[in-house]
């Protein structure tokens, strides 16, 4: 049991801290769910990438620093503590990139990853469909064979970032006659500006187009943009959603920084005793999440199956995030209803946590069945 960093890790942390201190914009950028904000965040990604800070854990050849998990955690702690902007490229970096690194071809990695790292190409995910939310295996959008590639037809929705992004990735049904619902799905990448794609932005509760519907009408995708073998999409995607529920989605650094901001807000408001317990719980929860993650990072990969472990993780951070933002809004008193503050946007964002990347009901079922060994029941 050792929480001491090696001198090299300390040096890495110090380098990151110094760079961030010199580069983080003094004023917050506009919300990335607006056209202006999206552009500003894209520019920030380029600035990060110029000094190899945008994707520290990636191989150097694609723009990273080959940093291990611990250094990635340290970078994230420094990043959020410095008050740096939200990451507009997160969908690609967190979901598509790990998939490509595991299942993509060398050609795909070389072509896709560098512009993703620099923010030149921002990716949206295209998982859900109107009738396939939690029940992802029931999706119906089709990929049909065409000379040299596939044609995509169907209706995707809740595509985060798609209002302003460049490209998207998702699952499509390539063998409608497959005996089981999760067979015969293919994982593809496509251009959001390709002929046949219609993007309809959808406003979130606070009026910002945080996601979009995608209508696909015979959109051509070359074979080069299929990930893995056709029909293998489900298996490949499941390894990605494991990542989504776990670390790549929410690093402890975010919550450590958020808990610090909450404590500062509480003190600013005169440290009201009624909020003491909730503020302390936020501070302790962030520390628990940090240490839980260090423990995961210290286990050999084969000892921590991504599925059930990431379900614990997802329930924890999503409920933590809501509680933290509710406390902040309560500290703001009657100002808590104002829509223009950072805390308000964070609260709206937090409410989606228990829904996406597998609802918390599904995660609890997984914990109960796979970690506790309880009977499957009917769900």
């Amino acid at each position, binding site marked *: 049991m050792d929480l001491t960093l090696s001198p090299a890790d300390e040096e890495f942390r110090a380098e990151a801290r110094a760079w961030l201190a010199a580069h983080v914009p003094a004023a917050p950028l506009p919300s990335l769910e607006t056209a202006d904000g999206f552009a500003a965040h894209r520019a920030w990604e380029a600035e990060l990438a110029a000094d190899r800070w945008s994707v520290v854990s990636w191989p150097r050849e694609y723009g990273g620093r080959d940093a291990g998990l611990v250094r990635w955690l340290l970078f994230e702690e420094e990043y959020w503590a410095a008050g740096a902007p939200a990451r507009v490229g997160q969908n690609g970096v967190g979901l598509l990139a790990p998939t490509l690194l595991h299942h993509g071809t060398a050609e795909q990695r070389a072509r896709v990853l560098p512009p993703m790292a620099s923010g030149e190409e921002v990716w949206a995910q295209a998982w*859900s469909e109107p009738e396939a939310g*939690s029940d992802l295996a029931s999706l119906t959008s089709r990929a049909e064979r065409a000379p040299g590639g596939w044609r995509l037809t169907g209706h995707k929705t809740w595509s985060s970032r798609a209002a302003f992004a460049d490209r998207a990735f998702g699952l499509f049904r390539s063998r409608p006659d497959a005996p089981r619902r999760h067979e015969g799905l293919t994982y593809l990448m496509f251009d959001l500006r390709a002929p046949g794609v219609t993007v309809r932005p959808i406003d979130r509760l606070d009026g910002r187009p945080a996601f979009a519907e995608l209508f696909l009408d015979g959109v051509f995708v070359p074979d080069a943009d299929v990930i893995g073998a056709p029909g293998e999409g489900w298996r490949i995607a499941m390894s990605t959603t494991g990542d989504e529920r776990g670390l790549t989605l929410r690093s402890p650094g975010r919550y450590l920084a958020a808990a610090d901001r909450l404590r500062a807000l509480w003190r600013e408001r005169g440290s009201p005793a009624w909020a003491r317990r909730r503020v302390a719980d936020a501070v302790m929860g962030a520390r628990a999440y940090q240490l839980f993650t260090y423990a995961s990072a210290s286990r050999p990969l084969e000892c921590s199956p991504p599925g059930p472990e990431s379900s614990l993780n997802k329930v924890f951070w999503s409920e933590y995030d809501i509680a933290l933002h509710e406390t902040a809004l309560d500290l703001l008193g*009657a100002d*808590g*209803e*104002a829509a223009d503050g950072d805390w308000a946007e964070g*609260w709206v964002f937090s409410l989606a946590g*228990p829904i*996406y990347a597998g*609802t918390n009901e599904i995660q609890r079922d997984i914990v109960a069945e796979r970690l506790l060994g309880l009977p499957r029941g009917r769900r």
Partner: protein
Amino acid sequence: MRFALDTEQRAFAASLHAMLTAADTPSVIRDWARGDPARGRALWGRIGAAGVFALAVDEKYGGAGPRPVDLAVAFVELGRHAVPGPLVETVAAAVLLAGPALAERFLPSIAAGHTLATVADRERGPEGSPGAGRALDGEVAGVRLVRAADGLWLAPGHGPVRRSLDPARRLTELSPGGELLTRDPPKDALGWARLATAAQALGVGLALLDRTVDHVRRRTQFGVPVGSFQAVKHRLADARIALEFARPLVFGAAVTMDPADVAAAKVTACEAAYRTAVTALHLHGAIGYTAEYDLSLWLGKARALRTAWGTPEECRDAVLDGDAGRP
């Protein structure tokens, strides 16, 4: 002792419900949120014609009140349909203006629903509760009052407007100065405002629950209705329980108008509505999270009412100071 609505009150609720259903409030709200209050004002006129605001105006000033129970009946319906505008504030204004000199000048138009009024309560805030000094919808109100420590003022105009998490609400600074209406306005405006807010929140919560039950009965995942999962059923059962136990507090407060009862109704109804909103959002999944789906119009209101006219902590203080229900 008969703690139940009478036939007339139930008929009043039903007629308001029918009128508001016919008014298609979601589209009225969307207009209002866009800054086009024309249809909202027309609806306001019909609500006034139905006698809602007159319930807060004493008979001796030409109203039909004070009838807090009937007012609570009405505000449950206004909340259920998420009617936009400074409804609670207009009630508070009616109470504040109930004095011999002022009543004649202001109350007929307010009671009739011709004038929207708003109030900035600077007696409690901003020190006591941050942000409490602002007025709702100051840019559409015809009468803008400031309740300050030194009396009741008619504000000459309004300052900057902030958006609320409820798209139908705009938080307005009122301009300082103006006309001093009275040094000593009636004291009970806060109680009426809290009661109306509690009743409105109860209606908001009931609507959120109804819509969500309806959704989970229709929506299927994994081949069965989402509403057949026990986890979903129990969350909705909890919402129902919270709302059912908030209801008697709201009507009990209307009967006694005891400050502790009113505060208990405010915090309990608002908390139940807010918890129901979080449940509703979650059980709708992503669609509930969108502005275009009508659920959003109730969600934001549940959040906003929670801190309007007294935060949960302020209301709990009032509860602990009182002795409601003790014989």
